[in-house]
């Protein structure tokens, strides 16, 4: 049994759909494209798909990954062609390859995510921005309180930052480039990092209007990072 691994996007058109809806859009496209996908056994069979990571509502991405378990191998270019025709606006196929054998799940191997966060500025002076980012980058620890229906939980942010935050000044806005580790015990969301930046480092941005875009998902050993289709 071969797995078809795809690198796909979640574009501006579908920024506001949930991960579940994104996954069912993929499932429907796979049926429409007549990809010979495998189903789970049992009385309520599921299509055997696995995603590398769930993307939140409101977040776009240029690099999502999904493994589709197939009953047989259709010629790769054929499969891409058929899927491309069947996919809705907002999902593009950027890479594809077959993977043979029993490989670990994408979810288990991907350990680094990179993001561009674009957010309008509330101050004219770029110096203030640079200062606040530098303080954040130099801080030993930064704690963030995550609130959920289950209660409050304090999280240390810096343990998840793979690299220092970089900034690119834009017109009346700023782009923050984040590299975040995904660990077996958890991670931090890019939006949460920005909340911490605003709350504790006085980053003068309009946090209600931030746009998050995932730029990559990688398997990294600290030195080398590769994407799941480069593996």
């Amino acid at each position, binding site marked *: 049994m071969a797995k078809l691994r795809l690198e796909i996007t979640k574009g501006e058109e*579908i920024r506001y*759909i949930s991960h*579940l*809806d*994104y996954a*069912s*859009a993929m*499932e*429907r*496209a*796979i*049926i*429409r494209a*007549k990809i010979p*996908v495998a*189903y789970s056994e049992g*009385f*309520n*069979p599921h*299509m055997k798909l696995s995603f590398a990571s769930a993307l939140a509502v409101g977040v776009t991405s240029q690099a999502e990954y999904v493994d589709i378990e197939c009953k047989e191998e259709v010629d790769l270019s054929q499969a891409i062609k058929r899927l491309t025709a*069947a996919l*809705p606006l907002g999902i593009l196929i950027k890479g594809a390859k077959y993977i043979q054998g029993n490989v670990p799940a994408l979810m288990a191997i991907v350990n680094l995510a990179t993001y561009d966060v674009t957010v309008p500025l509330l101050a004219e002076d770029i110096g203030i921005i640079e200062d606040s980012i530098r303080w954040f980058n130099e801080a030993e620890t930064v704690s963030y309180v995550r609130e959920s229906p289950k209660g409050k939980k304090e999280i240390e942010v810096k343990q998840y930052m793979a690299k220092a935050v970089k900034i690119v000044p834009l017109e009346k806005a700023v782009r923050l480039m984040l590299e975040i580790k995904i660990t077996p015990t958890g991670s931090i969301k890019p939006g949460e990092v920005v909340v911490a930046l605003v709350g504790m480092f006085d980053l003068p941005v309009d946090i209600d209007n931030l746009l998050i875009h995932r730029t990559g998902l990688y398997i990294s050993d600290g030195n080398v990072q590769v994407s799941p289709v480069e593996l």
Partner: protein
Amino acid sequence: MRERNIPLYTLESLKPVKEFDIVGFSLQYEMSYSNVLNMLDLARIPLLTVERDENMPIIIGGGPCTFNGEPVADFFDCLVLGEGEEVMEDIVAAVAAWKKLGKVDGKSGILKKLAQIGGVYVPSLYDVTYHEDGTVANVAPNSPEAPAVVTKRVVKDLNTVGYATKPIVPFLDIVHDRIMLELFRGCTRGCRFCQAGVLYRPVRERRPEVLLKMAKEMVDSTGYNEISLTSLSSADYSCLPGLVDSLMDELKEQGVSVSLPSLRIDSFSIDLAQKVQQVRKSGLTFAPEAGSQRLRDVINKGVTQKNLEDAVTAAFQAGWSSVKLYFMMGLPTETDEDVLGIADLAYKVLDLYKEIKGRRGAKVTVSVSCFVPKPHTPFQWFGQNIAGEFERKQQLLKARLRDKNITFNWHDARTSFLEGAFARGDRRLGQVLLKAWQNGARFDGWSEYFKYDVWMDAFKTCGMDPYFYATRDRNFDEIMPWDHLSSGASKEFLQREYEQAVTEQLTSDCRRENCSACGVCPGLGVEVLDWGNKA
């Protein structure tokens, strides 16, 4: 959206609704009227038809409520009675031609054109007068283009009419998030409370080979993995077992499953349910509608205690253990004994389980709605129970259903009261609707949003009496606000059925038995198409 100054737009093209030539609403339920006004307002379209000129979209309503669209007559440019497939093309052609010629004679020009299309009702071309006691004196066209009676459109043969094989597949989870395969239209079992049974006459089946082809095309174009076999009573489809087999055979490879939304109360249905749902033992739902045999005869629900026992027995034997039972209260001639009969049935079901399985453990859910008499049914003359009476009966039943294996759900009597007033209301209710909407009424069908007091205030401010519409018994010779809107079934037929109801006489199903002379077939030039019978 109001705060951010965003006008209502369409999800597919992101174009403001106001920029369209035609805007259509499906009127399925009276309690959605306030939302229609709200959508128009969000779209920045003036609510009243008199306030809209030829540069505004033409606002059209369809669906069962149009058969008494009088309460929304002030807001809609036209209401379309009956099935949409063919009439939609006529309407679009008329509007396109009018637009091409530079919108001749403005708004009234197009309305007069539309009024000449069969099935299209243009409320503004009719004047209504009233007697002193508030009943309708006369409804007459005020323009030669408008017919005295508008009769519904009906598709003669569903096998030849086009169908949408490429429905829009939204990203979001929607209510019917699956392929809806309509097996047939119409149901002539003749339940006397049922409006759909009258409005969609006669029964017309699709051929199994057409259905199979439709199903495959729709799977290919949508990618859905579930097909629901819809109809008013899908188990009545004459070729159902064969169709289910071939659908399952041909679509299994693509991971597609088949489901039946409604079950008939018999063991045939259980066999089928078992086949399509395989082992998913979620509960089964049956609708005996009334608790006693006498009352089931009154409403012509051709189900006996034995039918129910057989069906439930088959279900328990097949491994199901939870059963949902649907009933109504407030039906004509109902006594407390009939109401308590509901409890007896529920306990009977629990006992049956114990008999079959040798232990307790069945779960029965009893859902009881408040009967709302609807126009164009044999019960259109009947005065609805007042809310207090519904509540008394609900308590009566509740006291009797004290078993931890029985769950009892009931409908809010006040929502049903309002639904009843609008269902059989006339044009004068338009102002009540407008007032209630202005005072914040929205999503009235959702109990958490329903604002009863806002509605009652609106009635009061407008000097209207909701009881006059909902709970009053009518005389057979009273002119109904919807008498000029015809489903094809004659008033004589409905009256005959009412009289047979109160004398507890049954009427047979014209699908496979005798015609009961409702008038639809000869009147509209259509006939029953049932392949089990005549193929």
